[in-house]
């Protein structure tokens, strides 16, 4: 039982990270109908910004966090202007290729500017965690789970109970109709990119003390988050959360009870199973219904 509880806690902690990044995938997909393959790099860039300000310059953690998040908002806006906006009237394929190019560009730019060495970012809390009975609760994982819960609640309130949230939803459902109703579609998409970059950034900063800060960290997280998005249902916020948490738990238990080397395989076996048996995911709508 102790083992199960420890694995469950770890699985939820990792799953929460996948869920945060998956949320960014979903928001951009809803707004633009394309997958942003640079979403993981948003996490990596934010983590490096934290290293620059909190570690290298030794500025206060909270100030570094605010600067990093501000930087991510700016990056999201520039990303929209440089990667999506020029191709907005094309089909989805050029945009996807453009985001892949941007992902490579961000990774290599960071490598060129900062160098290849992995970096250490201290956790927010000095204590590593504490024991509840036989289960060790890592303080950083607790923070990740708490922040994910808060962001999900915020997102629900924002999309369901604010005018701007409803405008964003209208834009994601039908851009032409939204424009006819006077909604500034370009502005809404810009806002989506900014928010997604911030979300990715928060995920990166939260996970950095656990996984270390490296050029590859974004790609590692994004691959799993992408799988979580498909499992949950592309375009569905609840699905991204459930998909992320489910993936974290499945791979942790799979590693413990079946095989550690095949840990990653469990996530992708589930992914393939969903693509074959339920391509719309847990909460996604059927394409025919959307049309």
């Amino acid at each position, binding site marked *: 039982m102790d*083992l199960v509880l*420890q*694995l469950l806690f*770890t699985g939820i902690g*990792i799953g929460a990270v996948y869920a945060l990044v998956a949320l960014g995938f979903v928001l951009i997909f809803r707004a633009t109908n394309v997958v942003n393959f640079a979403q993981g790099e948003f996490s990596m860039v934010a983590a490096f910004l934290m290293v620059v300000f909190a570690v290298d310059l030794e500025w206060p953690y909270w100030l570094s966090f605010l600067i990093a998040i501000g930087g991510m908002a700016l990056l999201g806006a520039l990303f929209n202007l*440089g990667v999506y906006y*020029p191709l907005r009237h094309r089909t989805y394929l050029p945009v996807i290729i453009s985001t892949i*190019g941007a992902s*490579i*560009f961000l990774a*290599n*730019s960071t*490598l*060129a500017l900062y*160098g*290849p*060495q*992995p970096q*250490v970012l201290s956790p927010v809390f000095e204590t*590593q*965690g504490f024991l509840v009975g036989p289960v*060790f609760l*890592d303080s950083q994982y607790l923070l990740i789970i708490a922040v994910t819960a808060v962001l999900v609640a915020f997102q629900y309130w924002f999309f369901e109970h604010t005018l701007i949230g409803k405008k964003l939803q209208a834009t994601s459902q039908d851009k032409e109709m939204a424009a006819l109703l006077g909604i500034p579609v370009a502005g809404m998409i810009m806002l989506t990119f900014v928010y997604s970059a911030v979300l990715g950034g928060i995920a990166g900063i939260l996970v950095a003390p*656990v*996984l*270390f800060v*490296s*050029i*590859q960290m974004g790609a*590692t*997280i994004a691959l799993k988050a992408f799988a979580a998005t498909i499992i949950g249902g592309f375009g569905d916020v609840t699905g991204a959360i459930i998909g992320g948490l489910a993936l974290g738990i499945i791979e*942790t238990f799979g*590693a*413990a009870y079946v095989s*550690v*080397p095949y*840990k*990653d395989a469990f996530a992708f076996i589930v992914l393939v199973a969903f693509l074959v048996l339920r391509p719309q995911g847990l909460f996604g709508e059927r394409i025919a219904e959307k049309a």
Partner: protein
Amino acid sequence: MRTTRRVFLGGAASAVIGGMAGPGVIRSACAQGAASTVRIGMVLPVTGPGADAGRFALNGAKLALEQVNKAGGVLGKPLEIVTEDDLTTNPGAVLAFSKLASQSDLVGFLGSIRSTQNHAMAPDILKTGKPVCFGGTDPVLTQMGNPWLFRFRPNDSYSARVIADFGVTTLAKKKWAIIHSTDAFGTSGAKALTEALGKAGATIALDQGYTNQSQDFTPVVLAIRQSGADVIGSYFTFENDLGIFARQLRQLGVTVPWVGSPSIVNVTALKLAGPSLFGTYGVADYAEESSDAARNFGKAYRAATKIAPDNQSSWTFDAVTVLALAINKAGKTDPQAIREALLAVRGHEGAEGTYNFDKNGDGLHGYNVVKNDKGNIVFDKRIDFYQG
């Protein structure tokens, strides 16, 4: 306007990506040009998860290059190194080696520190027919009949024997958990350790592989805890994996002694894992206090780079030094003559140890045992198996 922006973005991207991954030529101050130099190729990770190791490898090679050229160069000409990025992948390594091998004036090469990449390049190395000095420690690499492979680090049959000997004899631990990467390096290391422990009369309570770039080791740590092992032996390929494992090991209350392969004392691992590695033991091919040659290399390396030396830089330092020595001994750049000169190297004091090449192409035959004393790597002893 759109075209201009696209051209700008494309150009900027190309500049960054090209700048990072493109080939490079390393000359020391006295080198003048390709026509008047002797050139060797070097495959190294400039991008990907091994890029940090690539930087250290290049530092070591450059330091040796400076010293070789200061001492008169090779065959009276300055030595020059041409580099190619292997992307830290097997296909990348094969492509990088192919690019270098297509340059007919390159007289020898430095391969990878990663066994899996050397395995991937081995068929092309055989076809090219020129000496390749490498740092991968899978014993099989020098036992598969490829006459052009020369190892500049002791192989894992030695590291396994030293880990087993130290753990069983010195620490008096008999119930082992072996944790290893599932790549060629980790698998061969674990196999060699299992054999060595069997001969030493120890039992294997757990043999647990993991895939590189794992994000969580909780199941592995819990398995160690459940196995009842009283000591851990490990073969980690990447330092970030080692760092995550070390932290989770301590968090989940596992305090048994840990004797690791050389990555446990790498500069990057020490930085990432910090106090989680305090009190651990490692077998290290490079230990600064193990010999005068190691001390001299350490001093020169610190002066040149302002960072601590480790095996990632010491093996390339030795490889460039010994390759230059062999070419000078051969008196010509004929591949077969260089090969014979390398095989004839005896008693060369390098940073990694004393080089005595055997018929397979293994230059070193022992390891140092070191301890992590609150972040300082303290030399304990050297165990050498060379019998002349």
